[in-house]
């Protein structure tokens, strides 16, 4: 069970949250203007990276807020969580492979 730092409530157990998949996929302002290909891209195609992943979480059994997180999908370590509309502080590129361990991060 992950420990997730809700930007509003602090560290909370994963069971209080619902994961909403890849973050920063804005709904097109005019879906009707998109080709089928572009619409399918928006709806279905996901980066699914092995490494740092920006994803959405909802603290559904807590404050109810949606927020974004950057997590390493290899170590499952969270690098950062941030409120909707904010930009992340961490600057690793999305393709970066694993990061420092929790133990190193603590040091």
């Amino acid at each position: 069970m992950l420990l997730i730092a809700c930007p509003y409530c602090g560290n909370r157990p994963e069971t209080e949250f619902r994961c909403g998949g890849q973050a920063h996929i804005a709904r097109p302002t005019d879906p009707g203007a998109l080709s089928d290909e572009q619409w399918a891209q928006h709806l279905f195609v996901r980066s699914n990276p092995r490494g740092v992943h920006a994803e959405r979480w909802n603290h559904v059994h807590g404050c109810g807020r949606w927020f974004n997180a950057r997590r390493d999908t290899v170590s499952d370590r969270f690098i950062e969580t941030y409120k909707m509309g904010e930009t992340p502080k961490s600057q690793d590129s999305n393709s970066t492979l694993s990061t420092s361990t929790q133990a190193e991060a603590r040091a």
Partner: protein
Amino acid sequence: MLEALYRTARALPLGRAPASDPARSGIVIQPAGAEARFALRVRDAGASAAGLPLDGPINSVRGNDRRWIARLGPDEWLIGSDESEADHLPSAIAADLGERAHSIVDVSHRNVGIDVSGPLAAVALNAGCPLDLGDAAFPPGSATRTLLGKAEIVLIRHPGGAPRYRVECWRSFATYVHALLAEAAIGAGSTEQAVRR
């Protein structure tokens, strides 16, 4: 006759069960009586409304047993009060909030309260609640939405030294939550025996 019924005879799902200590371990579980509750939502709330503070930190509760306000999120509060306040409180809040967009919804009948107290109350709650209920992480005056087993609850720790908690859940989950707490009390009692050998 019918008017009288409205005022006095709320049929609470747990009845008006007396306090119980199922494991005789000092954990007292008591369904709360009929209360009024409101879900308040407002952005940029300001300092207070109808005398209720809106500037407390998220996950804190202010007030007393007769009138409390728990901030559950950045723009969300759960307000509890004596039933006698039920009629005028929403309008008083609305008046104070003025033009600010907000929502006050009566959820008095949606929510059911269960009070849990006693030295091992936190141990019993931790049978189903995954939060750190230690004094540092969840001091008196804390309040949050969380889980108890497979039910969502709002957990409030009343101000004051003695461990007193209020568990609020939705009406149809009350039987489950109450039963889980009773089961947990049995388990919690034996914990301390085991620890103390």
